[in-house]
């Protein structure tokens, strides 16, 4: 990195800033919930068994899972927006999420035990990934146009099969399916958390290393190639890593929408288009976003719970529009 100094300064500013936001959000989320816990006594060491169980067995795994999922989905979103050069791209647009949902729903309708559902979803995602990559390759090259079309058709096809499965499901299964598709942050156990967090870090580091290449890609594929970027390798690697990340996220939590679309855009509007800044901040910011959304899901209608996808849409949509209008407005004034 030849332009090290300004970049390093910006990273040194924004990464700790967003990490602090994530930490603060996580602490608030741990302290708040449908149950009123007397946390003052926690500091005095005298929390009763019930409060301890709620805090450590329910809230902590859920907050950690939300942070990992939010980070994973947001980073995947940055990658897809970079290679597709389309502002509407989100992790679900390329069809892998459709395959994951189909696998999960098929397992639910077949009456599989709950622990097999995420595995079936992941298998569905891998099958979709293989099929899409095979179908979208044009003469050995990964054509963006073909990727988008194949993905859209795959999502429509999976959607139709899911509707079919819903029509033959029993009433109780139907309820499980609907909530599975809406997406929920699970109170994940150790291995799932390690998997989600670990893959999030791997994808973040890999995309960070490709940061300059992503910046070059915004000039177009020919422009980037002229700057020395191996465009095919970049597209393929980004697509594979991003799809695997999406597959993991959807298998664990269903289709939580908006995170992978809105968080990269919010950060781009606030911090600029340099991917070397965007990638790590998206990981941290996405985590904070989903932790906050899940907190809302857990508390807004207490003792009831909302599906988290509802909250991400309500949070993300209007805020994003507001930010977009203010940015557009300031551009017009110049």
């Amino acid at each position, binding site marked *: 990195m030849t332009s090290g100094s300004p970049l390093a300064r910006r990273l040194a500013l924004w990464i700790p800033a967003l990490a602090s936001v994530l930490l603060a959000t996580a602490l608030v989320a741990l302290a708040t919930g449908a149950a009123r816990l007397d946390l003052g006594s926690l500091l005095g060491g005298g929390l009763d068994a019930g409060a301890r*169980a709620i805090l450590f067995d329910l809230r902590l795994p859920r907050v950690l899972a939300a942070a990992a999922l939010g980070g994973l989905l947001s980073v995947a979103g940055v990658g897809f927006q970079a290679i597709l050069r389309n502002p509407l791209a989100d992790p679900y647009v390329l069809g892998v999420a459709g395959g994951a949902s189909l696998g999960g729903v098929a397992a639910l309708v077949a009456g599989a035990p709950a622990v097999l559902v995420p595995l079936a979803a992941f298998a569905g995602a891998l099958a979709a990934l293989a099929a899409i990559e095979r179908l979208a390759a044009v003469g050995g090259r990964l054509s963006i146009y073909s990727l988008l079309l194949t993905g859209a058709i795959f999502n429509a096809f999976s959607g139709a099969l899911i509707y079919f499965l819903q029509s033959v499901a029993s009433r109780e299964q139907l309820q499980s399916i609907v909530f599975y598709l809406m997406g929920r942050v699970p109170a994940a156990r150790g291995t799932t958390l390690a998997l989600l967090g670990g893959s999030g870090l791997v994808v973040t580091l890999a995309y960070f290393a490709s940061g300059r290449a992503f910046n070059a890609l915004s000039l177009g594929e020919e422009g980037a190639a002229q700057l020395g970027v191996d465009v095919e390798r970049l597209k393929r690697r980004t697509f594979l890593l991003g799809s695997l990340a999406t597959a993991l996220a959807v298998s664990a939590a269903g289709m939580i929408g908006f995170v992978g679309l809105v968080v990269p855009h919010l950060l781009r509007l606030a911090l600029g288009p340099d991917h070397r800044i965007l990638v790590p901040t998206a990981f941290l910011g996405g985590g904070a976003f989903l932790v906050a959304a899940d907190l809302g899901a857990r508390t807004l209608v207490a003792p009831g719970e909302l599906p988290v996808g509802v909250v991400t849409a309500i949070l993300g949509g209007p805020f994003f529009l507001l930010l977009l209008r203010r940015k557009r407005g300031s551009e017009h004034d110049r």
Partner: protein
Amino acid sequence: MRVRARLVPFVALGLAAASLACTRPPEATRGGAAAPPRRLAVMAPAAAETLALLGESARIVAIGDFVEPPAGRSLPRLGAYDAPSAEALVALRVELLLTSASAAGSAERAALERLGIRVLAVDTATFAGTLDAIVEIGRAVGRLDAARELVASIERRIEQVRATAAALARRRVLVVVGRDPLFVAGPGSHLDELVTLAGGTNVAADALASYAMVSLEAMLERRPEVILDSADNRATGPFGAILGEWGRWPFLPAVAEHRVFHLEPSRLLIPGPRLGEMAERMGRLLHPEAFGAPRADDYAPAAPPAPGGGR
């Protein structure tokens, strides 16, 4: 000639409209048909149970997916939805369709009425509605007095439970109908009423719906003393006085005192003519010291009797 040619389409349309206006509904729905229907289709399990108790199971010619066939008979299935296909009903010469009241099926029901098939949509969700449904079904099949007697005997059993429980200390009860996400019986459900009349307080009484998705930690915070878990929809169970997944929370009074019961869904979840039996069952689960210990068939139905017997 040209002028008259142009008039032809209008005349044709006018004749078509007139003929539509003159269409008369089929005889059967024009009221006054005094004979009770002899061929019934039943979609709601509670309605089938009511007919069995009134001794009118023989009139059933087709059933929905969730209905148990009357002993030993094999009947055509009509599907899982509240409004089965009109073609199937007409082919079977069904005269009366018994189903649950739901807004979703009302369009199909109107179509069935126009074909001459009477539809009786009964409330199978609330406590009071269930008892009214028994009377309505009795009236529809011409056994009104028997139905009224049946309701009276159910009400006597319920009152007996209520009286016994009145003097007992209330226990906090959680009734689980679905896990992952957690669904519980809330206010307005028949389960909520059963809990209250049998000497309990529903910890989810402030939930947003009669079957509500709730946060687990909120339910844990309320420290239920009895947990009734009917979330396992598969017939295999295991059912009984076992802790299951609730053993994760030993600080709950229900877990510490071993008052966690896994129940097969038919024991409590489907209101119908067995409401009196359900009230007594709830009494045994909540207050065994006053109603007697829970019986084996409180957790799961007893094995069916050997074939050859039955109604």
